[in-house]
């Protein structure tokens, strides 16, 4: 730690050298996951399975893009946390707005006869 502070090289410590096959493999997975999520619609999957499958495929795709294509898996933990933790507050926004939309829906249904 001490010599880390005193010498403090300003050069970036890692260039991203990874085998080409890794990118091709991830590319293949992304194609597969996109096909699967399209299939959810194509085969008219309904009920609770529909949002569940859509969200699972979406999160897997997002994870692969961020971690491998955007090299997040090999970044320093300081950067990873600085980028990936702040968006978590959006959960609060989504929570508040879903309560609000429920209120707006019933206001329209009860007082405006379903208009608006």
């Amino acid at each position, binding site marked *: *730690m001490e010599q880390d*502070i005193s010498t403090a090289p300003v050069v970036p410590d890692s260039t991203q050298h990874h085998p080409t096959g890794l990118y091709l493999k991830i590319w293949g997975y992304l*194609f597969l996951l996109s096909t699967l999520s399209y299939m959810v619609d194509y085969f008219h999957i309904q009920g609770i399975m529909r949002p569940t499958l859509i969200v699972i495929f979406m999160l897997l795709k997002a994870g692969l893009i961020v971690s*491998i294509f955007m090299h997040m898996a090999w970044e320093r933990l300081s950067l990873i946390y600085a980028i990936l933790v702040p*968006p978590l507050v959006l959960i609060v926004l989504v929570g508040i*707005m879903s309560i609000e939309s429920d209120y707006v829906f019933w206001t329209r249904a009860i007082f405006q006869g379903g208009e608006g």
Partner: protein
Amino acid sequence: MSHMMMESEEHREATQAMRDIAGDWSADQEVFRHTHWGKAMMWFFLLSDTFIFSCFLTAYMTMRSSATLPWPNTAEVFALTIGGQPIPLILIAIMTFVLISSSGTMAMAVNFGYRLDRRKTAALMFTTAAFGAAFVGMQAFEWTKLIGEGVRPWGNPWGAPQFGASFFMITGFHGLHVSCGVILLLIVASKVLRGDYDRTGDYSAVEIAGLYWHFVDLVWVFIFAFFYLW
């Protein structure tokens, strides 16, 4: 025994990672000095962009769940008739594959950039830009088709008037990002081809442009799931 050793090894790695974080933030210098400054700045820009797109998607969620009229069926709205058969969402599926392919070629471009392979990097970046332009072209086609069918930001023939507002806002802002990305890629690719980065031996600009491009693909993953499939 070996299991316990592996566990303690993992524990040591975890504590080392935590020490690194503490060191980065308390070293009385720039926190992200280990990262190329341009890359860190691009990540912060993308973080802010994440919030912008999240606000759009949250607004869409709010509008959709507060709409009293039925939401138009996206599978039918975005269907194309090919060979006399309507295929649901086919144009959106093709757009998704085009954008994913562009992400793949971009990742390969970054890869060859770090191997200092000037020609392959430039070629792959131009391919990425071509995929991006194709995507924007298909989006323009989609907009034209929907506007022709009477979709407006304030109404449409099929149901909830909020549909048009969400559609034009979200896909329009994403399309703007793709268009900017194509321009950025063309600029960086021509600099690669000219040999600008060979003089310094530093191909970080390719990776930074790549980050932006992958982000555009990432946003599309969420739009595809929430707007088109949901």
